[in-house]
């Protein structure tokens, strides 16, 4: 009896240990995960990402470190997934910082990204998932990412550049315009049909797609299916291309249910296939084409899951953020299919049982208190708060004390923008003045000293935003010139002393000569 009890306790302890180390579900292969299970897998990925940014479980998801990635691949897929999973997590500060980053990029270069159209497409999807409007970005709502990133996408020389990255640009362009079924404006350089035929014409002879060569690539093929899916019922040629691609993918599936790129089974490829299947409404758990030896693509994907909830990119590998974000999207797509919702990249709001995410909540008494509590000396740490409050205010037409709030927030934004500008200028002036070190001389001392004084004038927390190499090199140049200055001053001082001594000696000699001559003349 005691023995039984003891073993029960030890089993319980082992179970507890497992729970603590984060093994989330022990499930039999090929068993369909429940909606709740999928959500737990997604939440665990989010928690792991949170830890990556140094946040504790009780901290906000989008902490200062995370917000610095707004507008990059490293960041944007997370608020996208959070929105598509209908989680409560607030994305307001992320959206506010993203809007501001986009505004600043436009202000500086006139465009978001000169070489990669997919930068626009990713941000369009992320903004929509956060409840924002990618056709009216910025405080004055003047930036239209659909116009500049798809319809009239050109490079610096004015050449149409949607396809500059290859078929990738057309695929993501199509996903971007179909996310809300946007219509091409008059005079658009690219129309929906043009983009669609670009994707279709890039199909390989044996079916499927690749960035180059004639061998179908799993990732690109899966993404092309995601983009073509909305047209399969209205265009026979699209349906045929999708069918050929599906056959190709089925052939390319590994014996364990997974998918490989460059000969290596990886989490990203299998995730893209799962998203493609969900987009078409194909059940990856029952469709015979995608179950190999009793193992589904989902089973294969879950083999990359780590103890801490994150995903690795290769079997037995360590945590990989890119793999995690792609599996997060795949799990989200499966979850949406399970719940009969619109597919992952279809962001139209009239969804069953889904309340659309509100970009910015109303500016209320709490926001007012936050505004009034802002210190007079701001640092970059206040940037997300200030931007969020500003966007909340602009989203709320009737606020008592609007003028006061607007005055405080606009001047706070101006102050922060000035800090950002100063940091950028300092960075570029340091790069322009300091190098090569060998060529620095005392004539540059004033300039270097002025740069150093500007660096000193920054608050400690702002200084951290300057690149390490710029700061280090500035200190180095200053030390080098100070040494030179010191040597010159000492040299000059010594010269003076020598001069005095020489004069003294000359006088002394003359004096002695005169003293010797005087007695002679006396005789």
């Amino acid at each position: 009896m005691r023995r039984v009890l003891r073993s029960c306790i030890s089993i319980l302890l082992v179970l507890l240990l497992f729970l603590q180390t984060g093994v989330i579900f022990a499930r039999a292969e090929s068993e369909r995960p429940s909606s709740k299970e999928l959500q737990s897998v997604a939440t665990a990925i989010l928690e792991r990402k949170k830890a990556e940014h140094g946040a504790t479980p009780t901290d906000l998801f989008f902490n200062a470190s995370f917000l610095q990635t707004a507008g990059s691949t490293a960041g944007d897929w997370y608020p996208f997934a959070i929105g598509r999973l209908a989680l409560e997590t607030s994305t307001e500060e992320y959206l506010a910082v993203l809007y501001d980053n986009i505004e600043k990029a436009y202000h500086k270069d006139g465009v978001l990204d000169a070489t990669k159209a997919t930068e626009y497409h990713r941000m369009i999807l992320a903004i929509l998932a956060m409840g924002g409007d990618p056709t009216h970005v910025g405080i004055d709502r003047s930036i239209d990412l659909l116009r500049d990133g798809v319809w009239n996408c050109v490079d610096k020389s004015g050449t149409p550049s949607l396809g500059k990255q290859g078929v990738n640009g057309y695929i993501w362009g199509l996903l971007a315009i179909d996310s809300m079924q946007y219509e091409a404006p008059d005079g658009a350089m690219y129309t929906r049909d043009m983009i669609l035929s670009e994707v279709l014409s890039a199909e390989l002879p044996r079916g499927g797609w690749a960035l180059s060569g004639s061998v179908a690539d799993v990732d690109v093929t899966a993404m092309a299916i995601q983009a073509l899916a909305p047209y399969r019922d209205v265009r026979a040629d699209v349906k045929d291309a999708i069918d050929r691609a599906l056959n190709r993918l089925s052939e390319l599936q590994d014996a364990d249910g997974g998918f490989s790129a460059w000969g290596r089974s990886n989490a990203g490829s299998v995730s893209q296939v799962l998203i493609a299947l969900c987009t078409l409404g194909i059940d990856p758990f029952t469709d015979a084409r995608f179950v190999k030896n009793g193992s589904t693509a989902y089973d294969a994907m879950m083999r990359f899951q780590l103890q801490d909830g994150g995903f690795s990119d290769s079997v037995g590998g360590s945590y990989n953020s890119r793999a995690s974000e792609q599996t997060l999207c795949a799990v989200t797509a499966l979850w949406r299919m399970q719940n009969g919702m619109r597919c992952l990249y279809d962001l139209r709001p009239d969804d069953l049982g889904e309340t659309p995410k509100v970009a910015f909540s109303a500016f209320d008494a709490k926001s007012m208190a936050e505004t009034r509590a802002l210190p007079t000396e701001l640092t970059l740490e206040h940037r997300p708060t200030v931007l969020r409050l500003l966007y909340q205010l602009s989203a709320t037409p009737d606020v008592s004390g609007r003028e006061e709030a607007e005055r405080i927030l606009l001047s706070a934004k101006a102050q922060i923008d000035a800090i950002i500008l100063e940091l950028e200028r300092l960075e570029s002036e340091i790069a322009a003045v300091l190098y090569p070190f060998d060529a620095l001389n005392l004539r540059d001392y004033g300039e270097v000293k002025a740069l150093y004084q500007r660096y000193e004038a920054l608050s400690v927390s702002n200084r951290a935003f300057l690149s390490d190499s710029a700061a280090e090199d500035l200190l180095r140049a200053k030390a080098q010139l100070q040494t030179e200055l010191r040597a010159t001053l000492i040299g000059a001082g010594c010269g003076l002393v020598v001069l005095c001594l020489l004069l003294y000696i000359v006088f002394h000699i003359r004096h002695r000569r005169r003293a010797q001559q005087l007695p002679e003349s006396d005789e």
Partner: protein
Amino acid sequence: MKKDLFVAFVILFVVILIFSGVEIQSVDEYYLTHLDDIREDSETVFLTVRCDEALEHIGQMNVELLASGLLPSNGVILARTEYVLREGDSVYEILDRAMRHNRIPTEYVYSSDGGVYVKGMGHLYEYDCGPLSGWSFSVNGEPAQSSCNRLELSDGDEIVWSYTCSLGLFSAQEGGGGQ
């Protein structure tokens, strides 16, 4: 009189000594300003940056870039140079230092998995020579297997950054490319 002259010469000698050889510096200043001096016992690496392949594919090149005349006709963006390897330096730190010191404009992208990806160097950007073009690097002839900021170096390593017109989706600089 002879005594005076002697004193004068001694003073002059001391002054010349101070003038010519002695730098008066604190330890920190000395460390900062001599950080990258190559000595007999310092560990060093070699860095080369070339864009020959872009010049071979001039037909595919971004017209604006071609017209700008900013690319070196001999393909050399940075000729093979020796750099001091500081503790913990990766390919990224060496490249960043070299590009700064030679005032070669360089743009980095910080990718999803914390890796650093070189987007453009010396006016030559990814995709400037078609959809498969971009920067890649090798260490001792071995093509990169991870991001440049993850690859620690050892004494004598030979780093070569070259522009390629045929790189794969996620190859060359792990963590770059793709969406």
